[in-house]
């Protein structure tokens, strides 16, 4: 991938990827790291020489997966700390004033999302961020007809877990 194309791709995709990662992580600095990691991974990947739409789909998947992995790692770290009696790890939100109102609910959504199979979580994340079926299919490497399968199963699992997760 040439420097010019890398820079153009970076400028075009970075804001979108930060937004996607922020939905999952709720932390701007961490979202920026996830977006940068995804773009750096692209630079060394054969897909970098493919058309822009394929690059966009690949980046969507990689960024969503990396964000979900970070979320799961965070949850494991929090559980480990809690298990030894220390204070629970919490991520400082962008705006602390939000915490009282909606932050806890958002963390609950993220916890449920992190517990889903990766492909289902990615499908839900992309769909509810407004990506069309064709883009989700490209991102996940499945037929468009399979997107409904992933969404139906993901939403069923999400609802079940959501209703079981304490408020």
């Amino acid at each position, binding site marked *: 991938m040439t420097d010019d194309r890398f820079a153009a791709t970076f400028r075009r995709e970075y804001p979108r990827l930060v937004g996607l990662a922020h939905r999952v992580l709720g932390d701007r600095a961490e979202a920026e790291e996830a977006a940068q990691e995804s773009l*750096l991974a692209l630079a060394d990947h054969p897909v970098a020489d493919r058309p822009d739409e394929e690059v966009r789909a690949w980046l969507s998947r990689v960024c969503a997966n990396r964000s979900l992995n970070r979320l799961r790692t965070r949850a494991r770290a929090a559980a480990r700390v809690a298990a030894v009696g220390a204070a629970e790890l919490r991520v400082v939100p962008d705006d602390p004033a939000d915490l009282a109102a909606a932050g806890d609910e958002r963390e609950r959504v993220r916890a449920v999302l992190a517990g889903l199979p990766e492909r289902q979580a990615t499908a839900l994340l992309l769909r509810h961020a407004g990506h069309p079926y064709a883009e989700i299919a490209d991102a996940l490497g499945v037929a468009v007809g399979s997107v409904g399968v992933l969404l139906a199963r993901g939403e069923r699992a999400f609802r079940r877990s959501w209703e079981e997760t304490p408020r």
Partner: protein
Amino acid sequence: MSTCADSAALRAHLDHPDRALEAHFDDCPPCAGLLRAVAADAGTAGRALRLLDEGAVAATADAAARVEVALARAAAVRQPAAPPPAPAPRAWLRPLAAAAAVVGVALVAVVTPGGQHAVAQLLDAFRSERLAVVELDVDEPDLEALAALGTVDVGDLGEPRPVDDVAAGEALAGITAPALPSTPDEVLASPPGEARLTLRATATNGVPAELDGASLVVSVPGAVGALYTDEVGNPHRVIGRSGVLQVTAEGAALEDLRAFLLGRDELPASLRQQLEGLADWRHTLPIPVPADGPAWQTVDVGGREGVAFGDESGLGAAVVWQDGSGITGVAGAMPVSEALALAASL
């Protein structure tokens, strides 16, 4: 429309309404009920996920400047100036992630029956006699979607479990462990078992009528793994062996089942192409490796062909090879040359 829809079609209907399907609901209370359930799931998930919109990153006046700062940082990591500066945090993380992937690959290939089951179910190796790497450009194939093709019975298959010592592991696995260099800190083992995928033709899953009821039967070998831990108890080296993996077909030709599975869209196109390119597919066990994962090379391990993963950084390496008794592997936090020497000594 007279055909009932499955939940996937109903979910797609919520986003892209289908008039024929809509008319069908008037005459089919079960479908109408299923649609309500699917809509309730989608509504609950949608309302919850919209909470994340409220906390979304807002467009700010400094957005363009932030992109340029991030781009400069990424460019520095991508192309370090000469002489090379101290590695940036990202540059440290990438080989570390690769090291973790190396260990994961070795464990999947050697001591994880679930992994072998999945590989065999997908890739239809008849009897593993050699190994071949296939690169995945997705994190994992869509096994869940493949499950819609029929029923999967994994019997008593499970993760390896701790046993008292190597002898107990060998007894459980029904194989002989490699000659170990020292007494391991922990031994894991799993018994041999059988898994079965039986295809069921339905109106929507694409299974042809001639394959309805046909089965892939996977004879999953026993496996035993020896773990060596560091001073804080984290495993840093593993040596393992499993028996020979075999797959047979019932109710259809193995080649037909393979052709059908490889034609499914659930498998990424690049993976299908690699699998279709395996000349001796009846005896070649593919080892899936992430395309952006660790470097790998084919190697000679005491006259047997194997695959080595990793580099000389010492962060992680693995060697896996097959001989007449099965698949053997070593992995750990060591340079790949050390892993090769260890493999050759077994």
